[in-house]
């Protein structure tokens, strides 16, 4: 029976028979309808295996997965998902247009709108008509990503699974992808994004699940009211006297907190870009001789850098 419970993953484990590697170990997650969840983690963390299970390509050894109360391999679910794989293994003998027509037909979309829908899909991802006439095997990595995204969006999916969507795409393409995903989200599409491009994950996702060794180590809220803190390293004029108390007071007045102070430097936590501007204004107003301010790594980058991951949430207990 269909409901709108979103994606529910409960205690999913998966061990590959070959090599006996445990790729997923009791993963639990929920994704609300219309939400964007990023899945990040180091190589071998189990991200792509989790994708395989979510798409019904792999059968978990234990646990369960449901999309709106239905198993992921149900035909009804398949009609509502779009998928862009990391490895772009498409029908290489087809032309670009034939490839999209093929998926349009497989998605059971009306034949009457096929030509128009395919043309629109090409325009949407910034490919021209000439690309539609070329065989997919002649496409560059960036073009493959674009046509892959076009096929994923063809059927206006309720669930969009994207595995490294902007890999190999030029900066203009990255911006285009971001806009397309924003549009899809505005239409209520639930997005599951697996990406190593952390800036992109931060910009697109509401939450991010950090996977390590097949377990969910934490789920971080990125948007929805939660502040995305970042660290700003501020350098002061050489030899200038730096009073820790006045520095802390000035930082607090700018809505920031001092994390550490070093000779001639301080690292402050700010909420966002506006917070950084407020902090600098406040420091200058307090007469502190600021000569340089540099953004440190983002919170997601810090997740990667922490040796054993964050301790924000118990493993497997994320929601």
């Amino acid at each position: 029976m269909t409901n709108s419970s979103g994606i529910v993953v409960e205690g999913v484990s998966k061990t590959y028979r070959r090599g006996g590697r445990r790729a997923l170990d009791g993963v639990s997650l929920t994704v609300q309808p219309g939400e964007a969840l990023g899945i990040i983690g180091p190589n071998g963390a189990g991200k792509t295996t989790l994708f395989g299970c979510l798409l019904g390509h792999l059968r978990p050894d234990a646990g369960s997965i449901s999309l709106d109360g239905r198993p992921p391999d149900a035909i009804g679910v398949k009609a509502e998902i779009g998928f862009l794989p990391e490895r772009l293994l498409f029908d290489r003998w087809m032309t670009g247009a034939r490839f999209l027509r093929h998926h349009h037909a497989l998605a059971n979309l009306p034949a009457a709108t096929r030509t128009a829908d395919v043309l629109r899909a090409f325009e949407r991802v910034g490919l021209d008509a000439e690309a539609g006439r070329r065989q997919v095997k002649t496409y560059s990595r960036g073009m493959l990503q674009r046509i892959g995204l076009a096929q994923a969006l063809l059927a206006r999916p309720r669930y969009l699974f994207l595995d490294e969507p902007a890999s190999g795409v030029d900066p203009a393409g990255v911006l285009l992808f971001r806009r397309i995903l924003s549009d899809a989200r505005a239409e209520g599409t639930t997005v599951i994004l697996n990406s190593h491009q952390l800036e992109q994950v931060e910009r697109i996702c509401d939450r991010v699940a950090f996977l390590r060794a097949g377990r969910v180590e934490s789920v971080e809220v990125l948007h929805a009211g939660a502040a995305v803190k970042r660290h700003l390293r501020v350098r002061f004029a050489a030899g200038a006297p730096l009073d820790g108390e006045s520095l802390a007071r000035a930082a607090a007045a700018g809505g920031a907190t001092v994390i550490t102070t070093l000779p001639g430097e301080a690292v402050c936590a700010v909420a966002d870009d506006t917070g950084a501007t407020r902090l600098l204004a406040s420091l200058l107003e307090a007469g502190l001789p600021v000569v340089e301010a540099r953004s440190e790594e983002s919170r997601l980058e810090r997740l990667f850098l922490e040796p054993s991951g964050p301790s924000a949430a118990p493993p497997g207990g994320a929601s």
Partner: protein
Amino acid sequence: MNRELFLATFEQRLKSPVRMTLSAMLVFFTAIGFLMTRGAGIANTPHGYLLGLIFAGGVLGQEFSSGVPHLTFTRPVPRHVYVLSRWAAVCAVAVLWTLVPFVTAFFMTATAPTVLLGMLEASLQAVGIASVVLGLSAGLPGLADLGGLAAVGMIQNAARVAGAIAQDAKVAAFAGMTVSYVDAWFAPHLVLSAAAYGQALSPHAVFQYASTVVFWLVVAVLLVNRKQLSYATD
């Protein structure tokens, strides 16, 4: 059956330069043979069998090795429909090519009844071997299905040789039985052209052919339904 999958597979097979070159050569030489023999023994050629091999080789194994079904299976297409659509498409291409020498012969030399029976027999041969290849291809990667059939053929030939040189009647009987079983399981066919010379078609032979084809289709569907699409490196 899914119309789009059928058409895409049909087109894919016709756009393969290697398959088309091999088929064209085979059909050309078969047609020459037909024209030279002027209808006599018109169905006693293996070209239906060979065309079945050419077009069905790797029908599932090559696809799964290439990773294309990862995307196809995110579409609302049941796996058994995927299997049967691809089977139907390779059968259709193989049968169309199988008919070319007969059509040539029909217009140039042979008598119509012989040609019609020969067409049907060779077509059934193509369909039969395509079904066997489908079943093997569902469980073997790439073109290993053809390798598997080659291995089976070698076993059959070894049994033939053993049967021919055996001094012991039991060994000869066992070898004969092996040849016959391998033939029934791995090269399903029906001899129809004999009907042109007054021989009746055995219902047992029809049942054996049909059940073998169905057996391999079921094997293919079961294997593909169970198949997990590995991502290997994560």
